[in-house]
């Protein structure tokens, strides 16, 4: 942690030193200098706090850092009246980037398994219900009977093959 902060301070210090004539030019107003300082300090602090939910819109940047990432993910499957399964098209909710919302649904499910609270279970149930409603708004002729959440575990064997294991973690039946 301290090393990481030290590296960041080194980089930021070097940048501010190299660009001192521009950043802190005597022609530049005090407000603009303050904006530069706020931005740089804010970015460092947000990175140290590591919780977007506290620091947003200043973000924590840590993509693809853990050396032992989880080898599982969740899939959200709609089941229609013919028994056919299809991936829930999350672009119906967010066309630009679906995964942050997928994480929200995943978090709701995790919370419902962890905390035995009616409110939490109700939140998951109503969200899945609404997701089906959204789907049926776009595809009114398709009758959906279930929305399943599966956990998919995978094993990758280098230069060989991929083994997938699916198990159902939650099923939401549509009345």
């Amino acid at each position, binding site marked *: 942690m301290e090393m990481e902060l030290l590296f960041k301070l080194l980089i930021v210090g070097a940048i501010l030193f190299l660009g001192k004539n521009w950043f802190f030019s005597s022609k530049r107003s005090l407000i603009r200098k303050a904006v530069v300082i706020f931005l740089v300090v804010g970015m460092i602090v947000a990175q140290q706090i590591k919780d977007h939910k506290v620091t947003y819109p200043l973000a924590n940047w840590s993509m693809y850092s853990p050396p032992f990432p989880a080898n599982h993910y969740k899939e959200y499957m709609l089941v229609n009246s013919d028994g056919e399964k299809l991936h829930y098209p999350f672009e119906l909710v967010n066309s630009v980037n679906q995964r942050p919302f997928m994480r*929200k649904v995943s978090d709701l499910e995790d919370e419902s398994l962890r905390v035995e609270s009616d*409110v939490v279970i109700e939140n998951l149930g109503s969200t899945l219900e609404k997701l089906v409603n959204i789907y049926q708004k776009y595809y009114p002729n398709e009758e959906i009977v279930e929305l399943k959440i599966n956990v998919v575990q995978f094993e990758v064997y280098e230069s060989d093959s991929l083994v997938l294991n699916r198990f159902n973690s939650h099923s939401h039946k549509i009345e």
Partner: protein
Amino acid sequence: MMIQENAGVKTLALLRIVVFGCWLIIAVLFSPWSYSMLPVSIFESWGAYRVINLFPVELLEILLSEWFLLSLKGFLIVGCLFCMLGVRPFKPIAIFTVFLIVVYDFVVRGFNGFINHAQIGIFFSAIFIAFSPAVDSLSIHKKRLEKPGKDYSFPTVLTALTLTLAYSFIGIRRFMVGGLEILTNDALLTYLVRNTLNYSPYGFELSLTLIEYGWVILLLKVGFFVVTIAEVLSPFILFNNYLRYAWLIIMVPFHFMTLFTMNIFFWENLLLISVLFIDWENINYASLCPIIKVCRIK
């Protein structure tokens, strides 16, 4: 001396068009119907947006109602169009549009489980641009208002600084948390496979083919290491042209690689990179394109 110091009126105007162009695309793709259908009970305001908790809960219900989100989409599209075209008076229009962007961000973020890092650069850039003379060039008004000595570089440098510091922080975190292990063990393989198998409308499955070849995996790991080094050094491209060219050669293909191998596409960052790190002020367009030359001679 910083490279972007020379960024003048044209670069700033181009940045204005690109940034508000990105938000225009996002606004057009925004689905107010879907968001208004989601249960309010799962909404969670983030960071500075928690200020909403000071207001009665009815305000949140209004903000998440269908008619409000529909109006938001409409006004946001018009605002972004006006900003792209450089309609005057620019500052009031741009500040109002940025306010709408913040409201949009508040709504979408509240229903998300993590943040969309791809939108952070254009989010801050829109704020910087709104308070700048970004409309002095490339606008629908014929009269150019470029004034010598006016500071056109400030929003451009701030955007470049935000973007490059973010890249640098990612690289530093990866080395500090993952160490060399992340570059030598099968972590990259797991990331590639997980993101390929996980649902995405892009639907690329290149990784599943690539992992069948041992030498490709080795190449990907070497590439991951090189990209992480480039990320750490990102802010220094503001000061050195050679480093900037090398960085572009590494990072632009990297962003396309993440699309084909992980279904992750930071198109907003690619557009920002194309404006910020190419010297648009001094390009001799005629020499680049023989067709233009021929046309001019005729």
